[in-house]
């Protein structure tokens, strides 16, 4: 998958959890990614983060450490 598409998908998930009540929404994002993303996709996200993760919602960046 292109990084652009991955960023879009991850940010869409973050956009939902950003609107949810409660303090720590990164858990929700992390859980969603763990539940629905195939290991290849998670590996791509990690690799992209290692390169700086430009364009990713801060909530995704925070969540990625828990995936």
């Amino acid at each position, binding site marked *: *998958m*292109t990084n652009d*598409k991955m960023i*879009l*998908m991850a940010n*869409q*998930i973050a*956009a*939902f959890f950003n*609107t*949810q*009540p*409660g303090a720590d929404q990164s858990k929700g994002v992390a859980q*969603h990614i*763990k*539940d*629905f*993303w*195939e*290991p*290849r*996709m998670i590996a791509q996200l990690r690799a992209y983060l290692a390169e700086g993760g430009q364009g990713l919602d801060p909530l995704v960046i925070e969540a990625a450490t828990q995936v």
Partner: protein
Amino acid sequence: MKDFIIPGQNDAWGNGIQDETDRGTPAHTGAPVTLTIDGMEITVPAGTSVMRAASELGIQVPKLCATDSLEAFGSCRLCAVEIEGRRGTPASCTTPVHAGMTVHTQTPKLRKLRKGVMELYISDHPLDCLTCAANNDCELQDMAGAVGLRDVRYKAPESAPLANHFEARDTSGAANPEWLPKDDSNPYFTYDASKCIVCNRCVRACEEVQGTFALTIEGRGFDSRVAVGAENFMASDCVSCGACVQACPTATLQEKSVIELGTPDRSVVTTCAYCGVGCSFKAEMQGDQLVRMVPYKHGKANRGHSCVKGRFAYGYASHSDRILNPMIRDSVDQPWKEVSWEEALDFAAKKLVGLQAKYGQKSIGVITSSRCTNEETYLVQKLTRAVFGNNNTDTCARVCHSPTGYGLGQTFGTSAGTQDFDSVEKSDVIIVIGANPTDGHPVFASRLRKRLRQGAKLIVVDPRRIDLLHTPHMGEGHHLPLKPGTNVAVVSALSHVIVTEGLMDEAFIKARCDLDAWEDYKAFISEDRHAPEATEALTGVPAATLRDAARAFATGGNGAIYYGLGVTEHSQGSTTVMAIANLAMMTGNIGREGVGVNPLRGQNNVQGSCDMGSFPHEFPGYRHVHGDEVRQMFEQVWGVSLDAEPGLRIPNMLDAAVDGTFKGLYCQGEDILQSDPDTKHVAAGLAAMDCVIVHDLFLNETANYAHVFLPGSTFLEKDGTFTNAERRINRVRKVMAPKNGYADWEVTQMLANAVLKETGGARWTYTHPAEIMDEIADTTPSFAGVDYALLEAEGSVQWPCNEEHPIGTPLMHVDGFMRGKGRFIVTEYIPTDEKTGPRFPLLLTTGRILSQYNVGAQTRRTENSLWHDQDLLEIHPHDAENRGLKDGDWVRLASRSGETSLRAKVTDRVSPGVVYTTFHHPDTQANVITTEYSDWATNCPEYKVTAVQVAASNGPSDWQQTYSAQAEKSRRIAAAE
């Protein structure tokens, strides 16, 4: 596993037929009333007719104008009876029972009267019984026998011919002005006025059962006749549902297939393979020749009704385009080579095993079919999990109702609709969001329309003015014509009105829902920014209209919500599903008849395919692959170790293919190239794979990229079950041998065994789908009580079906939600990234029409194409005029993904700024236009919103021309050597 007795014949489970006696008038529910008929006592519910009560005793009072699918009409007078203490001879069909009544159905007076009535009928009816298509299947004939008619005294005098309707010319050779030629304009049935007895059954069927009101009786007395309000049936409002044909007691309205083939000699009950209503039909047969499909009166989803697809559009099953031999090729630019099953399976297995060896265990996967049976789907997902050793399985539900699974799972705790279809008969206010039931779910629409005629209110949330809003004789209707992509804002605004005006059901919320979540939600939804006045500019729905609708829903009694793909196929599809669940919970509309949240499922077995573990993250019964307990249970039953990580979803598979890490696919009964969004991307993904196995009836568009073609079987050729939108597990029964040699479950098993031969695993040994169902029941708690014997006894059951609910569960969440407390979820509106702008100023939304089904692979191969032979682009007159377009012009439709050409239909059914088309025809390739945007939670594509431009064009686009040339080349089959 349960003890299982292997059935020697497929009919070991019976043909499913229960007593079909026509009791003359509909059943009633009421206090018991006891009366005496012909000396025998009977107790029936108040409101029952004397005719029906007699029938319950086994006494069939002669009748012509009555049938138990229609309200009594009382016109033929054949059913007269004598009632002690009453004068005259009242019609038993229109006379309700009374306590203590004493009825006589056979007296000399009645016999004489009935003979007289029959004599009159027969005197104006051709006596060509022996050559009539309804011979042996004609109620007029039966009644002539039943009343003992032996002679007709009315004879034409020599001098003046007797006036009649059935002779084209009188004895002098002059044309008979009363005679009308046969109307055979409808491709499936004829109307032969010369045989009509003007009993009015057809007119009433069209009104009461179908709700179309296409027929009337014109004229009076001898001049009265059935009229279609147009030149002929095809030109009229008739939607070819067949209800009138079924109701007609004579050969006046007759299936053309019966005219051609003769009357059937056996019937087998089975389930329609088209939409998610899941209508039960009798396949009426002569040997292994299908003569006609007749809706089954005891079918619990359809209650004896049908639509044009299930009733008539089965011709594809015997179409010459069907591929009956397996085929292989090394690369997709070669012609196909027909080979034996063994060779094809060996070729496929070696390729798949080789790909896994080279690219890893996760480099191959499957797509299960929402058109195949539960048993077949279960095997396909088992193939990838247990044989390929990964979770790369997905299904077309990905592109339709995956957000339903997620949204209802989060709020209620289960991924399915809450009601049965009967429930609509108790609804008082009905919201329909993003669905077009008269076209997509026609039999349910007829049931809904009946309720609307009885006074239920309708609220439609849709960019288009759908036909449901034009239901004849309906009461209050609200249309909320929102801009595509603003569902969340509209549903939240409805909730805002209800909460801020204090119209919610506090008692229900307190008792049944998670109160912390409710408080959070209440604070959120009460904010002014959700008020209809604040969202009006964004959604296009006038605030006053929205407020009226919200009040009507919250205060109007039983409120039910039905929704379709116009809800799910958005970037916020899952959020809208949650918003709908919120709306139902806050108004207390869950857990009883007449209410609920009801996804209208597209394909026949889309519910079942989801239930059966087609999704890459969950095992059958919606249990996540992460869960150790369930995974270990499957490991034990299947005797292999299983992958604990989710697999790839369809769009992820295609992305991975383009990246070079996904190389092989077994695709059963789906045509992802035509049905999935962004065709060019799908084509690139398929082209990047080394082994694509298509298992289908036809060389579909996906097969253009396939290396192995395994011929599929139709629903007529196999046993199994489909699960409809109300969670109803219906039997599919084999009525003929598979033309391709094997049922689809057998083909999957052979493929599994071919792979297992290479890898050394234990062979699969299913001998009948009933055994597969037993394995499903053993491994899936919601199916624990299901087996074929139960389905035979009950006709059908709705899951959950287990110890707690031994004959299934019509209504969900009655005493509590599946997840415990219902959970309100904050549903913030987040606009899609797909936005109109100067380059693409219009919004395209897609849908379907009545006569065609999905990608059209089946219906295009039937006469249904007479109603819809091409996809059209609906465009508002203003937008058309701005572009200089006229109705019927070729137009170019372009988005940032691609462009295609089709003809325009100028109509104000769509709002300015919105255009609409269907995706039934591969030449149009509407999905060349749709984009890769998808639902945030499930990747369900955003089909319903694409920014486009429309301009005049000369004909098909370059892409269409190149594609059709390539498709033609790819379909070549090499001549046998």
